[in-house]
């Protein structure tokens, strides 16, 4: 059945709780046996007619004890199963999170976060049921029939054997049904999600459908899909029910056979009345644990599937190899807060085949404002990622103040360098919570100052709760532009020495775009700044402009020089100027 060694090894801490769950369940089984034996003995005595009040009192006392004992055991089982699940959840989350920290940015850049998130959140949920319920029940359902077999074999070996041998029929039949089921199941969940998605899609786009008078067609399609889905569901259900019916026929049928055989043996006189009653009461218990296990089967399968995704994640090797601990002497106790960056013959590829950067040489001089321009796909953002060491270059090296960045501890490097990407993540919480991420100890005055510098203070001051305003999940109560300005304020509080703005306004409307560029221009006056942009008008005043094309630096220089050279830059400038002019001139003519 479904046990996975690797999976089991995940749950070191849970093991003892799983063991306890199983032990409590077994103790409860023993309590059941004692209780049935007691009742059977008393009835036997009644039958033979030799009984006195002491028999009744004794039985009553034992049953009372068993009620209490079982009550406590049920509570303990429940607690132990809960603990094993909880441990798994905590432990796994910790492991996943720690692993992601170890894997660093390189992994996050390459992999879609959505996948990691599903693996982590859904997978942990599924495994919780797997460890809390499925595993203990599985061990128990292996042990319980054996205990009952030993107990029954002292009464009637034939009955005991029949019942024991029938037990494996249940998992065997379930496995057979499951094999058949795989064909039916094929794509059922896809179907389910497809219908849900279609329904959602139709509702969200309903206004559009109405505008184009397409809502009636859509309702028809929805009806068809919904009906097809119902049929698919029923097929699946029929299959699941079939496995239950097989299980039930075996369980009830064999228990009844056991009971009937006990009846014959009693008639022949080979067993006593009490023994017959014991068989009558306990025959079904051979099969109950497996039936319960069957109802957790789904959880078992889901758990395994989920664990595969989690293992794939946990087995990832970090991209970076070099993790220095010591801050190089030259970077300690600096008076001057400027840094320079030099790329020396840098080559890089994400997948080892398709080169993103080739032989790139560029310099961001201390205190300067440098711009990196080029069409999308030219490798601009990769340059930013390399400076912050999200990944290491395949060829060449990157120097910060003349020191190879591989020799700088990561956390120190990231104190020196701060990136504002085109869509910064904003955390659930207040504006202040998000700002403090940049600097834990920031005072309110600091925060307001940073907001002012980021052109965000007007908005903050217009809010009734100011900095303590809740921004919603992923900052969804803010507009794209507001989120971006908050991210800039946050980065300013971080007080890095080099700021990289990576298409900081590409998803922002014009009003915010202008505010943000104003803020960046202000910052560039006293910080070393690298600006990555596809809108050339924003970088005209940079000290140096590098033009990137297909992973190569094709041109560099000042705006004036580049426009005259009549190369890639000049061409881009012409194209864009036309668009910007189109917008303004017609109106302000």
């Amino acid at each position, binding site marked *: 059945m479904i046990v996975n060694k690797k999976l089991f090894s995940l749950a070191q801490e849970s093991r003892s709780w799983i063991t306890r769950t199983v032990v409590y369940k077994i103790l409860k089984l023993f309590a059941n046996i004692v209780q049935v034996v007691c009742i059977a003995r008393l009835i036997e005595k009644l039958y033979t007619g030799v009984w006195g009040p002491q028999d009744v009192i004794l039985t009553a006392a034992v049953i009372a004890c068993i009620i209490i004992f079982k009550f406590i055991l049920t509570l303990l*089982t429940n607690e132990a199963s809960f603990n094993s699940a909880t441990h798994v959840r905590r432990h796994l989350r910790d492991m996943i999170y720690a692993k992601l920290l170890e894997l660093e*940015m390189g992994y996050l850049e390459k992999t879609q976060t959505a996948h990691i998130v599903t693996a982590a959140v859904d997978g942990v949920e599924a495994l919780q049921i797997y460890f809390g319920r499925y595993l203990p029940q599985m061990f128990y359902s292996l042990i319980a029939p054996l205990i009952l077999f030993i107990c029954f074999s002292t009464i009637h070996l034939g009955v005991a054997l029949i019942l024991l041998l029938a037990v494996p029929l249940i998992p065997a039949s379930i496995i057979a049904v499951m094999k058949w089921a795989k064909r039916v199941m094929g794509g059922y969940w896809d179907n389910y999600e497809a219908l849900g998605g279609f329904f959602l899609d139709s509702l969200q786009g309903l206004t559009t459908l*109405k505008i*184009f008078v397409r809502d009636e067609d859509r309702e028809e399609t929805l009806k068809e899909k919904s009906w097809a889905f119902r049929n698919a569901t029923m097929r699946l259900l029929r299959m699941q*029910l079939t496995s239950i019916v097989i*299980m039930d026929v075996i369980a009830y049928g064999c228990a009844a056979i056991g009971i009937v055989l006990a009846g014959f043996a009693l008639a022949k006189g080979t067993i006593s009345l009490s023994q017959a009653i014991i068989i009558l009461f306990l025959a079904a218990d051979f099969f109950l644990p497996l039936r319960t296990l069957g109802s957790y089967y789904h959880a078992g399968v889901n758990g395994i599937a989920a664990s595969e995704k989690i293992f794939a994640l946990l087995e990832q090797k970090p991209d970076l190899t070099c993790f220095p601990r010591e801050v190089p002497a030259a970077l300690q106790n600096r008076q001057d807060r400027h840094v320079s960056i030099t790329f020396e013959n840098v080559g890089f590829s994400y997948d080892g085949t398709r080169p993103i950067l080739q032989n790139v040489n560029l310099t961001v001089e201390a205190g300067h404002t440098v711009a990196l321009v080029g069409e999308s796909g030219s490798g601009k953002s990769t340059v930013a990622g390399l400076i912050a060491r999200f990944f290491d270059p395949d060829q060449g090296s990157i120097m910060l103040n003349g020191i190879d960045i591989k020799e700088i501890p990561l956390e120190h490097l990231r104190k020196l360098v701060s990136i504002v990407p085109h869509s910064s993540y904003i955390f659930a919480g207040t504006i202040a919570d998000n700002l403090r991420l940049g600097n834990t100890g920031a005072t309110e005055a600091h925060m307001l100052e940073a907001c002012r510098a980021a052109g965000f203070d007007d908005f903050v001051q217009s809010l009734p709760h100011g900095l303590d305003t809740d921004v919603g999940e992923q900052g969804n109560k803010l507009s794209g532009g507001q989120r971006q300005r908050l991210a800039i304020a946050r980065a300013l509080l971080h007080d890095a020495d080099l700021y990289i703005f990576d298409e900081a306004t590409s998803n922002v409307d014009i009003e915010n775009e202008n505010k943000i560029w104003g803020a960046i221009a202000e910052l560039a006056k006293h910080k070393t700044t690298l600006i990555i942009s596809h809108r050339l*008008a924003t970088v005209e005043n940079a000290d140096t402009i590098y033009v990137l094309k297909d992973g190569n630096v094709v041109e560099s220089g000042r705006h004036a020089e580049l426009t005259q050279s009549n190369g890639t830059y000049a061409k881009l400038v012409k194209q*864009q100027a036309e668009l910007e002019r189109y917008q303004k001139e017609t109106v302000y003519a």
Partner: protein
Amino acid sequence: MHKQPAVKIMLRLLHMVTPLAPTMLACIFLGILGNLSAVLIMVFGSMVVASALGIQLALPFKALVGLTLAAALVRGPLGYFEQLMGHDVAFRLLSLMREKIFGALRRLAPAKLIDKRSGDIVTTIMGDVEYVEVFFAHTIAPVSIGIVVPLTVLIFAGTFWYGFSLILLVFYLCTLIPLYIARHVRATGRNYHAGFSAINTHFLDSLQGLRELIMFGRAEDRQKEIRRKGQELTDASRKLRRYEGFVMALSESCILGGTAAVLFSALYRLHLGDIGIDGVIIVTVTAASSFGPLVALSALTNDLMHTFAASERIFSLLDEKPLVIEHPGAHSRVRHNTPDINYNNVLFSYPGKDESVCRDLDIAIKPNTKTAIVGPSGSGKSTVLRLLLRFWDVDHGEIFLNGENIKEPPLSYLRSNMTMVSQDTYLFNDTIEANIKTGNPAATTEEVETASRRANIHDFIMTLPNGYQTRVGESGCRLSAGERQRIAIARALIHDAPVILLDEATSNLDTLNEGSILKTIAHEFKDKTIITVSHRPSTIVGADTIMVLDEGTIVEQGTYGELMNRNGTFRQLLKHGRADASLQ
């Protein structure tokens, strides 16, 4: 939404079942038989044992053996058909419910769906439908079974002695105690669920923002926070789990206690000579095996409150009256290719709101002209367009299309005359081609391509992995705001309506994108009537008439030059809208 009593909701849900009553009744009947047969295995089994002792029973030994085996064999199949029929009813009704909900929303839209919370409504409704399944498939039959089977057992036990029935009844009722205490833990349960989703959200937040956490060197603090929150939740959920354990332990005690009580009273009746040893065995075994349906019942009720809350939301949606009603007997007419539009003294306020969004609004738009309506946000600009599309009806005054009140023709006729491109273009989770074809399902592939070329998006589409057959949102096809608007333009082109409504169509775009899209619009829609609504002066390129809207009424109107000379609201607007800062 007014609160409805649970009983009323339940009756309404039951009413939904009536067309399928035969299946449902069959399901209940088979369920009862199935559960009875489970009890009967033990009852006949005990008779087999008693008969083996040589005691004369109503049936001979062999017949009892046969009945025991028969009861065991039918148990499985009966359960199968019970479940199958129950779910058949449930899934039929769910399918029907989804249809009804979509139908209701169709009637109510867009008025109902236009605001921001529409996303919430949609997701809640989706989840709600799932909850209702609990009622149809897992409530009606179990409740019926939970009543009928124990009653049958009580009657059977009563044939031996009425006292047995009374004793069993007491223990049956004890099994149902959780139904009463469930009320008190419900709050704990809600807290737990809230806490649970909170911690999941927090974990998700930490994963999605991992890049920022690493960059700011805050990842380890965050990890500690995750651990701490996890611990808190564990403590809270332990309480709930203990309650569950208590319920389980209680029902087990009831079963054993009930069996023992019946056994000891049977012993007393035996002592009195009222029943024989066979009676003792049969009654004890029957009692012990009769609790199943009740235990199932006590476990069921926790979900039921959710189900009722969900059903209430669904029903109140189904009951809602649409705001815009189609004129009865309206019949379609031939489309006019050069329509004029007139707003005559229009007054409008959104339902439930006091302040008027439009007041004394008079607008006259000639065929093939370009009109720009500008004004500060909140001035009612978008409402002007929505009224023309009849998303809502005016409270007072009239809107005429070609001299005919827009309430007269069918809605489909009205909307075939117009196309709207708005700020948030909705793209369906379908191929690019299908999305463009939303504008005209009959369009050929060539027509789609032509429209795309005109909208300047064809080249981009060709770079996608599957060209026009690429699904929107699929990896490799995440569209930027500019690309979405271009697809919206292609869609509008293919719809080919004489009137084009642009509702802040470029307001989400950066400078370069806006410039290039405005250029496309001016070029491709030059022979159409265009009404543009925007808070941004840059969009009034090429407008014949500019109308300045403030507080729901037109305060200025004229050409660009006229308005600039007037030194009024328009000039004020332009001063604020000027946007041309660049890097210093």
